[in-house]
């Protein structure tokens, strides 16, 4: 599915236009609506951090947690943001290895979404413990000198290991791809900003050897990051799947089910972010309907695979014919308020967006892609909520301790604030660094050039596959 839509003019003009447009955030002035968006996001983030401070100061009594619902909004949000972070690898590593042309403008946005949602996700388990200063003792730096080692049987040890590995490799991945663009920014700035970019550009001059190393590093990191792509969310799913005592959690299908669910929500989030950035930075020439079209097709495949795993998870649960499992499922599907949430979840995550994406006009419409992808993420947030809460609320079989859960105001603020924090971080990153890979877009343009020899038109550059 290659569409050869090249920009007008000769190559030099195109390159100048690309530099001008994509570096506008760095060298020129950004539209006013950019700062309005940053201010809004910062306000939400501040509310979230304020709520977190309140919870830490007051103790977890300020939340809606109780016994036996010991995990709720914080963990839901943690799983949700880890899920969003899967977009980065999915879009850039896999599509880079597969050499999909249309990925070019999307990759860095996806990687940045990955990094900031990972950072954001890591905050939640720390706040969740109620005494964050104690959590540092658990994860970093661990005091091995006293001979007390972490319990490697616990999924909560696997979690930070997987997530920190993922974060490190994602940062490296973004940085390697960013070096040529930082060099472009370095050459077009003065003063303190020039020095800042000079340090980060690592002496990039664009020599062939440097390009070769950069490309090899990019490919190697893409390949190395792929196992992490599978492992991170599998490990997050084992936080639940190793629980023998919570009905509806101890399912062996959780790992692939969570991974594909993460891709579903992550790719949707990247589409949303790309459309917002296109609006804020006026990147109409770079993020075009055909990109939305391609992402929409990818989303259809991902969503249907996810639905298959969802259906299998329910089927496996019901297949046991255990009273406890049947009771839990009937509560998830038929008892208020979970029945309402379930209906919203399944419609928002699957039955509304997927038929919509079947239409080419929807896939090529920025408005409808925004609506459908936001809808997917509302649904996927509820999916995590519906996995975590009902199982704990009806912890079988000692029915004496059954409980219910209602989130408190600080918990809701923190969930809202997490969106603000990620949004603000992405926008500020886009102000400092070009969020559409400049060299990648130029490369795409070169590959799209055609030349006429006699009566035949052939590609100007032939790439070795």
């Amino acid at each position, binding site marked *: 599915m290659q569409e050869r839509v090249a920009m007008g003019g000769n190559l030099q003009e195109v390159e100048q236009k690309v530099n001008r447009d994509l570096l506008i955030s760095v060298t020129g002035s950004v539209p006013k609506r950019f700062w309005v968006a940053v201010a809004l996001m910062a306000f939400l983030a501040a509310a979230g951090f304020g709520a977190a401070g309140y919870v830490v100061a007051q*103790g*977890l*009594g300020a*939340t809606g*947690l*109780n*016994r*036996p619902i*010991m*995990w709720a909004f914080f963990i839901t949000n943690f799983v949700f943001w880890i899920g969003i972070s899967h977009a980065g690898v999915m879009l850039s590593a896999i599509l880079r290895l597969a050499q999909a042309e249309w990925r070019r403008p999307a990759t860095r946005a996806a990687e940045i979404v990955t990094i900031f949602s990972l950072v954001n996700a890591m905050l939640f*388990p720390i706040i*969740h*413990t*109620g*005494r964050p200063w*104690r*959590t540092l*003792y*658990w994860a970093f730096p661990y005091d091995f000198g006293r001979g*007390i*080692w*972490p*319990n490697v*049987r*616990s*999924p*909560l*040890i696997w979690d930070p290991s997987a997530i920190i590995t993922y974060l490190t490799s994602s940062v490296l991945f973004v940085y390697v791809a960013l070096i040529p663009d930082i060099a472009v920014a370095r050459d077009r700035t003065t003063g303190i900003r020039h020095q800042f970019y000079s340090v980060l550009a690592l002496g990039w001059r664009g020599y062939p050897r440097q390009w070769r190393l950069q490309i090899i590093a990019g490919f190697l990191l893409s390949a190395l990051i792929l196992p992490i792509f599978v492992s991170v969310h599998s490990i997050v799913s084992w*936080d639940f799947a*190793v*629980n*023998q*005592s*919570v009905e509806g959690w101890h399912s062996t299908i959780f790992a692939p089910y969570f991974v594909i669910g993460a891709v579903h929500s992550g790719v949707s989030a990247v589409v949303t972010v790309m459309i917002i950035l296109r609006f804020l930075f006026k990147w109409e020439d770079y993020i075009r309907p055909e990109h939305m079209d391609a992402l929409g097709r990818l989303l259809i495949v991902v969503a249907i695979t996810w639905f298959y795993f969802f259906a299998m998870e329910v089927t496996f649960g019901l297949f046991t014919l255990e009273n406890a499992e049947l009771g839990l499922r009937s509560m998830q599907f038929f008892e208020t308020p979970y029945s309402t949430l379930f209906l919203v979840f399944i419609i928002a995550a699957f039955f509304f967006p997927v038929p919509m994406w079947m239409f080419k006009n929807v896939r090529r419409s920025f408005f409808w892609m925004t609506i459908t992808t936001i809808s997917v993420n509302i649904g996927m947030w509820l999916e995590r909520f519906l996995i975590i809460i009902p199982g*704990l609320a009806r*912890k079988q*079989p*000692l029915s*004496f*301790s059954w*409980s*219910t859960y209602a989130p408190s105001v600080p918990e809701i603020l923190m969930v809202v604030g997490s969106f603000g924090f990620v949004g603000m971080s992405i926008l500020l990153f886009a102000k400092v660094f070009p969020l559409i890979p400049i060299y990648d877009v130029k490369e795409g343009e070169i590959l799209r050039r055609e030349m006429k020899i006699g009566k035949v038109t052939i590609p100007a550059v032939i790439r070795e596959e």
Partner: protein
Amino acid sequence: MAKQDNGRAKWSMVVDSDRCTGCQACVVACQAENNIPLNEEDIFKQRRAMSWIRIERYWEVPFEYTQHPKKPEDAPFDQVKARFLPILCQHCENAPCEPVCPVFATYHNDEGLNVQVYNRCIGTRFCANNDPYNVRFFNYWEPGWPETLRNQLNPDVTVRSRGVMEKCTFCVQRIRRTERTARKEGREVADGEHAPACVQACPTDALVFGDINNPDSRVSKLSKDARSYRLLEDQGTEPNIHYLMKVDPFLTEENGHE
């Protein structure tokens, strides 16, 4: 995972549900002995009340009301019986709560006790999720006592701060005290020499505590009783607490007895 006999005592308990009257004396005794914060009304409404031992009350209806199309709630009230089940930490040999703790704040010691190390706990609450008996309690608030109760606190027991998981210890402070006394006097700990607060307070002698490795102790004899069973045995947790079934004098083969 049967416990090997390592020459140490293995503390165990027998709960005779036939003798339990549901009086909750054990609950109060435990509360006083172990410095458990007061369960005031608002704490209770938040569903964060703590009681290391609790009496679960279930209603038992005649057998035919458990069969479709009859419903349990239609049973005539004079045939409905209240059943009491004291539930405390089962000190499982194969405890599900232990492997999930990332910092070893809960582990199994060589006397069969499932031990909680308060100052190592960081509050992930994973153990509470993986605990099928719901006997782990989290300090959501910093515990506080009225001024008049200050001197009531037990000096042998830590006061837990907020953010810490806690649960029944089998009154380990009492076990240690008796062991110390016995060692000082150069003798073995005798059966029934010490007991947790709940056992001591039980007016009907429904709770029996002792060393199950000692074949002559009351606990090891009672645990071999025909009525003996363990709670949620199908979960494979190998609990250290043995329950004795309720004896129903009116139960015959016609009304549901197997």
